[in-house]
C-alpha cells in the first residue's frame, strides 16, 4: 500500500507537467485579457513539431526548441485575430485549434503515413538527484522538464506577474486597458507578448507528451488536456501557485487511474470511468472555485485605440 502511494505521487508530478505548462501559459494570456482557445491545437502542434523535429535531427532538445518556436508563432497568430483585428476570441481560438490539429495530422500522415508500425523515438531520460535515499528516490525520479516546470517556471511566472513592472502591466491590461493606454503603455505589445510566452509554454506542454512521456505521436496524444488547462486556470484564480495545485488535482486523479489500470485489477466498472474521472473532478472543482473566481475584467474584450 505504501509503495502504491509513493508511485502515485511520483506519477502525479509526471502527468501534471504538460497540463501545468499549458495552464501557466494560458494564465499569462488571460491575465492580459485574451482567452486563447487555440490552446488544444497549440499543444497538439507542439507535440507534433517536437516529435517530427527530434526524429529528423536526432536531438530531443532541438525538437523541444522548435516546438516552443511553433507555439510562439501560434500565439502571435492568435494575436493577429484577437489583438490586431479584435474578432471574437472563442471563434478565432477554436479556428486556430482546428487549423493546427489539421496541420499536424496532415504532416504526420505525409511523413509517417506509409509505415506499418507507429513511429517512435528514444524519449528524454528521467533524472534523480536523490537516487540514494529510499522512498524519496521513487518520487524524485522525474524528467528534467518536470523539475523545471515545478521549480522554475511556476515561481518565475508568479514573480513576473506580481513582482515586476511587466507583470503589473500585464495585470493592468487585463483589467483596464484604457487606463493602461492612457498611462503610456502599449496595450497591443503587452497582449502580443503574453500570447507569445503563453504559446511557447503551451507548445512545450504538448512536446513534453511526445518527447518525454511517450516518445511517440498519435491522434489522441492531447485528448482534451488543453481544455483541462483552461479549467485549471479558472480554478487557480489566475494565480500561478494555485494553478499548480489545480494541475496536481487533475494529475493526481489521472495518475490514480493509471496506477489502478497498471495493477490489472478486475473492477466491476469500466476503466473509462477512471479516465473520465479527472474531467468530472475538474468540472466539480470549477463549480466549487468558480463562485469566487475573479475573472480579469477585460477578458474577451478586444481593445482598439480610437
Amino acid at each position, binding site marked *: 500500500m505504501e509503495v502504491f502511494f509513493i508511485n502515485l505521487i511520483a506519477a502525479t508530478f509526471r502527468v501534471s507537467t504538460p497540463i501545468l505548462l499549458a495552464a501557466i501559459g494560458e494564465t499569462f494570456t488571460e491575465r492580459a485579457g485574451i*482567452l486563447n*482557445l487555440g490552446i488544444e491545437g497549440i499543444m497538439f502542434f507542439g507535440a507534433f513539431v517536437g516529435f517530427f523535429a527530434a526524429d529528423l535531427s536526432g536531438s530531443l532538445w532541438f525538437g523541444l526548441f522548435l516546438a516552443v518556436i511553433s507555439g510562439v508563432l501560434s500565439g502571435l497568430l492568435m494575436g*493577429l*485575430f484577437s489583438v*490586431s*483585428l*479584435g*474578432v*471574437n476570441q*472563442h*471563434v*478565432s481560438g*477554436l*479556428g*486556430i*485549434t*482546428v*487549423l493546427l*490539429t*489539421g*496541420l499536424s*495530422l*496532415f*504532416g504526420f*500522415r*505525409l511523413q509517417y*503515413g506509409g509505415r506499418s508500425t507507429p513511429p517512435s523515438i528514444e524519449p528524454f531520460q528521467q533524472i534523480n538527484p536523490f537516487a540514494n535515499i529510499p522512498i524519496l528516490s521513487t518520487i524524485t525520479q522525474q524528467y528534467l522538464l518536470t523539475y523545471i516546470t515545478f521549480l522554475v517556471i511556476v515561481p518565475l511566472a508568479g514573480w513576473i506577474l506580481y513582482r515586476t513592472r511587466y507583470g503589473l502591466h500585464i495585470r493592468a491590461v487585463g483589467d483596464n486597458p484604457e487606463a493602461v493606454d492612457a498611462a503610456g503603455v502599449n496595450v*497591443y505589445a503587452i497582449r502580443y507578448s503574453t500570447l507569445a510566452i503563453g504559446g511557447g509554454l503551451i507548445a512545450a506542454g504538448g512536446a513534453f507528451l511526445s518527447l518525454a512521456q511517450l516518445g511517440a505521436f498519435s491522434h489522441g496524444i492531447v*485528448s*482534451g488536456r488543453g*481544455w*483541462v488547462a*483552461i*479549467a485549471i486556470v*479558472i480554478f487557480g484564480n489566475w494565480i500561478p501557485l494555485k494553478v499548480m495545485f489545480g494541475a496536481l488535482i487533475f494529475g493526481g486523479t489521472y495518475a490514480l487511474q493509471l496506477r489502478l489500470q497498471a495493477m490489472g485489477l478486475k473492477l466491476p466498472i*469500466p476503466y*473509462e*470511468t477512471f*479516465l*473520465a474521472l479527472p*474531467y*468530472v473532478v*475538474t*468540472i466539480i472543482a*470549477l*463549480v466549487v472555485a*468558480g*463562485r469566487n473566481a475573479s475573472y480579469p475584467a477585460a477578458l474577451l474584450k478586444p481593445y*482598439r485605440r*480610437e
Partner: protein
Amino acid sequence: METTKKKLRLVKTNNPSFWTKPLIPVLALVGTFMLTSGLILWAKANPFETYYYFLIAPLGSRVSFLEILVKSTPLMLTGVAVTFAFATGYYNIGAEGQLYAGAIAAAGLGMAMHAVPAILAIPIMIISGFIAGVAWALIPALLKIKLAVDEVVTTLLMNSIMAYIVSALLNGPWRDPNSGWPQSQEISPTAMFFKIVPRSRLNLGFIVALVTVLILWIVMTRTSFGLKMRAVGLGKPAAHFAGINVNKTILIAALISGGIAGIAGVAEVAGIQFHLIGELSPGYGYTGVIIATLGSLNAIGVALASLFFGLLDAGAQTVSRALGVPVYLGEVTQATMLLVTLGMLLLQRYKIRRI
C-alpha cells in the same frame, strides 16, 4: 493583414465601400487557397490539379455530387445547433459531445427496435436523439445560469467525458462480439433512415437537416422567441432591462442547441454507419462553430456554408484518393477559410487609411 504598420491604420466607418461585401467571399476563397497551396507543394502535388480534384471533380458526377450532400448533413445540423446557442450569446462548444449523446440514444434504441415498424421507429430515433442531446447540454446550461460557471469550459470538458462513455460502451456491454473493431451491433433495418436517392448514401438525414435550417429561419425571423434570443445575444443587461427573462432564454436556446446536435448523431448512426463507432464524428461539433460563424449566424448562411464544407470534405477525399495528398487538407482549408474570412469581415467595418 498588416494592420500594425506605422503608416496604415484601420479607421472605423459606417458606410463601407460598396464593393467590399460581394468581394469578401471571393477574396477569402482566393486567400485560403493561396495559403493552403504550401501544404499541397509539401505533399509534392500540383496545386492546380489538386484544386481540380478538391473543388471541381466532386461536382462532376452524380455519385460524388450526392456525396457532397451526405457530407454536409452532419455539418448543417451542428451548424444550426451552434447558431441557436451563439445567437443567444451562449457559447456552446459541446456540440461534439451532444452529437455522441444522440448517437448513443439512436444506437441503443435502434438495436432494440427490431419489432417496431419503420413508421414508428424512425420518429422515435429522431426524438430520442434530440432528448439525449438536450440532456447532455442541460448540465453545462444549468451550471451557467444557476452558478455562473463558464459554459465554454464545461461544454468542452463534457466532450471529453462523452468520448470515454462511448469508449466504455464499445469496449464493454455494446461491443459486437463478431467484429474485430470496437463497434456496436447493427441497428434494426426498420430504424435505418431510408434513402432519398437509390444507389447512393443520401438519406432522410439530409431532409431532417434542411428542416432544422427552416426551423432556425422561422424562429429567428418570425417568432418573438427569436427576437429575445438576439436581444440576449446582443447584450444581457439591455435585454434584462427590456423585460426579457435572460436566463430562461439562454436555457431554452442552449437545450435546443444540444438537441439538434443530438439529431446529428442520430443521422450518422441511422443514415450512414448503422453502428455506434468511436470515430462517428471527426469533429463535426467543432466544425459546426466554424459553419455558424461563416454563415453569420443566420439560417441561409449556415445552409450555404455547410454545403460548401460538404464539398470540401468530399473533395478532400477525392484528392487523397487521386493524388495521395492527406485527407486533412480539408480540415486545414476549412479552418484557414474561417480565419481569413474573420479578417476580411473586419475590412467591411473598417477602411484602411494612410495616416
